[in-house]
């Protein structure tokens, strides 16, 4: 029996010729990452275990991004704890505020994670990095503490889902719409414990940004990871990262066998898919944008780890150029990283947003988790390009979040209601 991409990566790390779904193996990790919130708990656990040495400071990554720049004294205290830990252990991949951005944008972009590797991250959206043909999976703080102490993690070999996308995309339809459409089809528990593996010629005509968006939301279907095939686009991306240029590290790529066993298989003809919107209070409560009735909005968030890459911002800017955000709507733009923010400034993108009446924020997870930089009041409605719209996710329990791509979010900001760029 042939093997899926996830099975091959796990077998490779476990030193076994093959693995089968359900098998539990202990594997060395290439990177163990945490944000300041998950790290705080991991550090507390390491201390309580009496572990004062990490297995390898070159394979640890810390990105304070959730409540940073520090939103209050509690957040400040946590950031201090994490910073002190990074200093004490000489953690190589510590991205201070102003040096990195949002973990899931920063790691691939800097070359911290490479194809064929296994990364665990103390954040459920760690799966984003699977766009680079690696196995990246979210875990809790105890698992991260274990990985920092021993360099290893236990993994149950997942079953896999093969999702294939073919056909020609309609205007303003992007990776976000494909993954929302898929969530509508599979449902939020539809791929629980699975490795979601994405295939199809659609990705030949989309930038890597869309692969990151789709891998990012694998967890929204319950996936352990989301993985793309390696191709020339992946190679170009990886080999242009600062770390790769400096060190030329070797990496391995993995493709599934022709007879690999997939527990779930779907083929999507994208030709008829229009921009999608996930309505409250679940990412699988999806409708085409044309079927959304007249819903007035108070806030728009564009960017973050799901849709904060350069191409995402460019698509929003194209819609906003020369137009104005509706008078009573707040539009908040959040680039995924400092690197992306810099290009946005250099190319005039940020000025398009500012001229349209948007806030151009620094990178942070703040609004997405109801932390800061855009917390919703009672009964407020937000169109967001983030990944979750659970009850109370972005603030007040009675607030509502609709998930969409960056072009739809930009068009909605202009109209003051949920709508498509075609209506402008």
């Amino acid at each position, binding site marked *: 029996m042939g093997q899926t991409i996830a099975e091959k990566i796990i077998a490779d790390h476990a030193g076994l010729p093959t693995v089968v779904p359900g098998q*539990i193996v202990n594997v060395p990790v290439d990177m163990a990452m945490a944000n300041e919130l*998950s790290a705080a708990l991991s550090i507390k656990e390491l201390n309580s275990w009496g572990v004062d040495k990490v297995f390898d400071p070159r394979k640890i990554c810390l990105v304070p991004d959730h409540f940073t720049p520090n939103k209050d004294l509690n957040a400040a*205290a946590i950031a201090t704890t994490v910073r002190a830990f990074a200093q004490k252990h000489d953690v190589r991949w510590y991205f201070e505020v102003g040096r990195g951005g949002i973990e899931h944008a920063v790691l691939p972009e800097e070359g911290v994670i490479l194809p064929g590797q296994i990364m665990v991250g103390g954040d459920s959206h760690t799966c984003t990095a699977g766009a680079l043909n690696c196995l990246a999976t*979210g875990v809790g703080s105890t698992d991260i503490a*274990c990985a920092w102490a021993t360099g290893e993690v236990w993994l149950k070999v997942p079953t896999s889902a093969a999702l294939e996308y073919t056909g020609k995309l309609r205007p303003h339809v992007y990776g976000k719409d494909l993954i929302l459409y898929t969530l509508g089809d599979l449902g939020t528990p539809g791929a629980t414990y699975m490795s979601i593996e994405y295939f199809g010629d659609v990705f030949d005509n989309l930038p890597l940004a869309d692969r990151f968006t789709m891998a990012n939301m694998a967890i929204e279907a319950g996936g352990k990871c989301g993985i793309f095939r390696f191709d020339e686009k992946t190679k170009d991306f990886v080999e242009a990262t600062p770390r790769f240029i400096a060190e030329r590290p070797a990496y391995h790529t993995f493709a599934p066998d022709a007879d690999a066993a997939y527990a779930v298989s779907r083929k999507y003809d994208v030709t008829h898919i229009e921009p999608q919107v996930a309505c409250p209070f679940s990412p699988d409560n999806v409708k085409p944008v044309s079927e959304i009735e007249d819903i007035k909005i108070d806030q728009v968030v564009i960017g973050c780890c799901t849709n904060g890459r350069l191409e995402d911002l460019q698509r929003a800017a194209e819609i906003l150029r020369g137009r104005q955000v509706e008078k009573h709507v707040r539009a908040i733009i959040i680039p995924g990283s400092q690197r992306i923010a810099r290009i946005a400034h250099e190319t005039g993108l940020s000025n398009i947003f500012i001229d349209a009446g948007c806030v151009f924020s620094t990178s942070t997870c703040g609004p997405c*988790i*109801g932390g800061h930089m855009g917390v919703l009041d009672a009964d407020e409605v937000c169109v967001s390009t983030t990944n*979750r719209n659970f009850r109370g996710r972005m603030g007040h329990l009675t607030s509502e979040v609709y998930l969409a791509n960056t072009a739809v979010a930009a068009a909605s900001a202009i109209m003051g209601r949920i709508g498509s760029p075609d209506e402008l």
Partner: protein
Amino acid sequence: MILKGRVYRVGDNINTDVIMPGRWCHLTDEAELAKHCMEDHDRDFLQKIKPGDIIVADENFGCGSSREVAPLSIKAAGIGAIVARTYARIFYRNCINIGLPIFESPACAAATGPDDGLSIDVFGGKIINHTRGGEFAFAPFPEFMKTIMDKGGLQGWVMERLGR
């Protein structure tokens, strides 16, 4: 080992955001976490439960964010065990790792209502509903997970790996 308790019943897709809202995710102290457990699912949760109570859920319990403060708060609030039809995988891992007893039993979930009295025979592999009657098997744990659970969580296993 027998775990006995009264049922606090929830439905499908209870996500970790409602178990432990983002506004409390800076907390690491267990007593503080306990105060906010399930806050956005049920404001009166803490008034309704007693130590040892058992959460019974339907599909996909603990979906969404990987925040370990969610299962930690459940454990700290005094919940003795969770029984569900299915779990989200990160939540499931976290429970095993922190030593919060967690059982998968679609049959038990289907036949259990609010305030029922349950007892869970952890080693015997069965759950008994004392209120409505009925005995249900739960999915057996893989050997590796049993090892972790026998050590009270992942800490014991890490100590062994480090030769302590």
